[in-house]
């Protein structure tokens, strides 16, 4: 809390608005000393006169001194705002604490009252209340305090009900502290900060509301008020336009100061909660720390000219950091995917394999960029293409199958419409042709009832189905290169093998080049022709799958092998390896 105060004092907007508000409060307190004239003495011979030596801001329509009235009106505004805040805070916080801490009945009552109070515009309720309560501003703002109390209630309620189940509160209860003590010591501290932010905003609103009521002529005319002065100025706007200006400035600046103060407080609070949310992918990829060492390359079949589909050379990927430096997550990566072959990219979480895949697609998370090297695809350097050229390539030539099926389909559109969209763009198909093709694709990827899945929304299909849909979407425009990022990791064990089989069949049938990102040597054994092992942003070993399985040379590669369950059933001609992805859980880093 004290740290919040200290930080606020270092925030220029915060301190500026705070200073202004202090000035407002001080001029309210010392209005009788500061005001050069009596605010209620009307000088009938001197109405609507402009600023002069005697009347600095001139006289209003009834001959009152504008400056004096402005100062006394500030008293009213400050008092009314304080009144509203106290009523709203006491009601809202007490009810919120009770509802959040004890739940049940308090909760039901609080929620019902909240929705009732918010069903009508505040000003309509205030007007209705005025017809009963008469012209007193104090009565009206008391009602407004009740009306706005739900704002406090909600903030406090959600904070408290979140903390209710926390262990330290339980511990306090077990250790015999009484409920009021627990609320006072552990719960109130949680709500204090958000309540202060809210108070600043509500103060601004109540200044506006009370001025609005007085402006409408519903206030007590015998007490000077900003709204009343505004009304007077507006009536005389043609003869003395300056009269509108002073109360407008007073109201406008005070409201803006409260809003800016609230904003600054919130910013500082958020900063205190730990910097802006870090991106998942960035967090996953660790900084390059290992000393560069030569890549262990196994003997490879001689390259036939013209078979290289994708050639990545000396690729480095970095993220800008707040202090201006660049954090490198992929360094000096070189790999080749040939036409019709499956190249595995294996490594533990954070080794940079997904970052490598995203940089080939040029879909790095914000802040990330290619800082060195080249990505040559069919003779073009992808790193140098314009955004538009890259968009034309994606989906049509290079496709992507993501890791997490459920979060990779747009929840607001049907499966079918998401399949049809790229085909219409890339292949120029008509609506009906694209639909027919989408249904064929769904059938091809093994979806039992393509028509039903086509019309379904993503939340209506299972994870395995969603992954098949995503695979269908990836191959829909006959790409040359498929980048699959852990395509089976998020699936049920039984579904994993089926999806791997499907990928293999599709790859053979369409002679696609595939870059398969995985952490699972079982998957590599099952699908890949060649493999590159990544550790801490670098490739440490690369070569044909058979060669590496027969003789893993790098220590890290061997440790990945050791992670495979020893009693797993071997399959095929590769010794010492688990079958497909089904038993690969053991490698999960």
């Amino acid at each position, binding site marked *: 809390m004290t740290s919040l105060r200290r930080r606020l004092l270092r925030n220029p907007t915060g301190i500026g608005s705070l200073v202004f508000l202090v000035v407002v409060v001080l001029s309210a307190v010392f209005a009788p000393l500061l005001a050069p004239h009596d605010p209620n003495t009307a000088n009938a011979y001197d109405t609507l006169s402009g600023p002069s030596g005697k009347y600095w801001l001139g006289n209003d329509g009834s001959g009152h001194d504008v400056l004096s009235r402005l100062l006394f009106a500030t008293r009213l505004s400050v008092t009314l705002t304080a009144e509203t805040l106290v009523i709203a805070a006491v009601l809202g916080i007490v009810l919120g604490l009770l509802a959040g801490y004890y739940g049940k009945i308090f909760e039901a009552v609080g929620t019902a009252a909240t*929705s*009732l109070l*918010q*069903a*009508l*515009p505040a*000003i*309509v309720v205030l*007007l*209705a*209340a005025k*017809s*009963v309560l008469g012209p007193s501003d104090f009565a009206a703002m008391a009602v407004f305090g009740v009306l706005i109390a739900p704002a406090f209630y909600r903030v406090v309620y959600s904070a408290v009900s979140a903390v209710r189940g926390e262990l330290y509160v339980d511990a306090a209860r077990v250790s015999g502290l009484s409920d009021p003590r627990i609320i006072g010591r552990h719960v109130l501290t949680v709500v204090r900060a958000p309540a202060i932010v809210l108070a600043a905003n509500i103060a601004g609103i109540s200044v506006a509301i009370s*001025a*609005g009521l007085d*402006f*409408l002529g*519903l206030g007590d005319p015998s007490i000077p008020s900003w709204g009343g002065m*505004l009304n007077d100025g*507006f009536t005389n*706007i043609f003869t003395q*336009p300056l009269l*509108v200006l002073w109360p*407008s400035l007073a*109201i*406008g600046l005070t*409201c*803006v100061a*409260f*809003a*800016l103060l609230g*904003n600054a407080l919130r910013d500082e609070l958020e900063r205190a909660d730990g910097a802006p949310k870090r991106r998942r992918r960035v967090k996953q990829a660790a900084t390059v720390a290992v000393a560069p060492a030569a890549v262990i390359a196994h003997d490879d079949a001689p390259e036939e000219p013209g078979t290289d589909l994708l050639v990545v050379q000396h690729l480095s990927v970095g993220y800008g950091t707040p202090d201006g430096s660049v954090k490198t997550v992929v360094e000096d990566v070189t790999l080749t995917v040939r036409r019709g072959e499956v190249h595995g990219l294996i490594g533990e979480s954070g080794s940079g394999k997904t970052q490598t895949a*995203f940089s080939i*697609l040029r*879909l790095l998370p914000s802040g990330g960029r290619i800082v060195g090297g080249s990505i040559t695809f069919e003779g073009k350097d992808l790193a140098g293409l314009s955004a538009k050229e890259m*968009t034309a*390539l*994606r*989906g*049509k030539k290079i*496709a*992507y199958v*993501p890791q*997490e099926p459920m*979060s*990779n389909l*747009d*929840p*607001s*559109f049907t499966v079918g419409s*998401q399949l049809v*969209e*790229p085909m219409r*763009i*890339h292949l120029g198909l008509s609506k009906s042709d694209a639909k027919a093709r989408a249904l064929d694709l769904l059938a091809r990827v093994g979806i039992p009832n393509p028509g039903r899945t086509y019309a379904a*929304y993503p*939340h209506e299909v299972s994870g395995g189905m969603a992954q098949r849909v*995503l695979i269908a*979407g*990836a191959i829909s425009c006959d790409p040359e290169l498929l980048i699959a990022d852990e395509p089976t990791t998020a699936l049920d064990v039984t579904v994993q093998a089926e999806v791997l089989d499907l990928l293999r069949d599709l790859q053979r049938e369409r002679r696609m080049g595939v870059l398969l990102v995985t952490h699972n040597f079982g998957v590599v054994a099952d699908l890949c022709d060649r493999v590159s092992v990544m550790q801490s942003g670098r490739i440490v070993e690369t070569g044909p799958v058979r060669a590496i399985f027969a003789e893993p040379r790098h220590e890290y590669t061997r440790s990945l092998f050791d992670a495979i369950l020893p009693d797993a059933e071997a399959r095929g001609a590769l010794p010492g390896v688990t079958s497909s992805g089904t038993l690969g859980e053991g490698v999960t880093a």
Partner: protein
Amino acid sequence: MPRFVLRRLASGVVLIVVITAATFFLLHASGGNIARRILGQEATEDTVVQKTHELGLDRPVLTQFREWLSSAIHGDLGASWFTSQPVSEAISSRLQVTLELVIGATIVSGIVAVALGVLAATRRGWIDRFVQFLAVLGFAIPNFLVALALVTVFAIHFKIFKPTGYTGLEEDPAGWLSTVTLPIIALSVGSIAGVAQQIRGSMIDALDRDYVRTLRSRGLPESRIVYKHVLRNAGGPGLAMLAVQFVGLLGGAVIIEQIFAIPGLGQVSVGATSQGDVPLVMGLVLATAIVVVTINLVVDLLQGYLNPKVRLS
């Protein structure tokens, strides 16, 4: 779907009854001597008693409310105590004017807020900071100050629009436009700020989702991803915010109508409440509550259109 609508309608009706009941009892609990207020200080005690009896004020409040409710259900809201004009007549023509302003402001704020919110979320950088700054100002400055500034500049100084008055839409569309433009702008500023902030926030959130990357990987143009997919997903919270703002606009219109001398609900409200004209106040509260409940229902249906998960549950 129909069950969902029926349930919402039922809870709306309950809400309306509770609101009107609360208003009715509050108005009567502390109303003072209403007949005396109507008749003035010169009236004799006898006529006051007679008037009280005439208005039925000498009977139990509960009975009075039951009567008010049953005639309200049959479309009879009684007559003003002061002008004897039927309440429904006094309200209906003015409700239309207010709704023109409020719906106009809602449309304007929806369009401008989406444009600003999308701009801020997709461009970030200084544009984002500028939009955020505007949003704080727009949220903080009371709409009547905006209205006064607009009148001073565009009506009094440049004489582009009429400073006061109202022309019906069906009699003269151009005249209508020249009288409602400034009020609608003045009303919109605050809700643009609120909705733009919301759209910006949920757009930034949606842009960070996995499916956006996958859509990009399919080679869809960025504009299509932003306006079709991301905006559709960010639209729900934006719409909810617009609904909250609508209620605020309804209240804001009360003040704005005074400034522009527009014969809407605001004028009746101010008059009726300062006089303590209970039947008229009741009619106004009822009309407002019905509008709010209707809007919330419409928004719920629109949410169902935007979000397939809501639609099914």
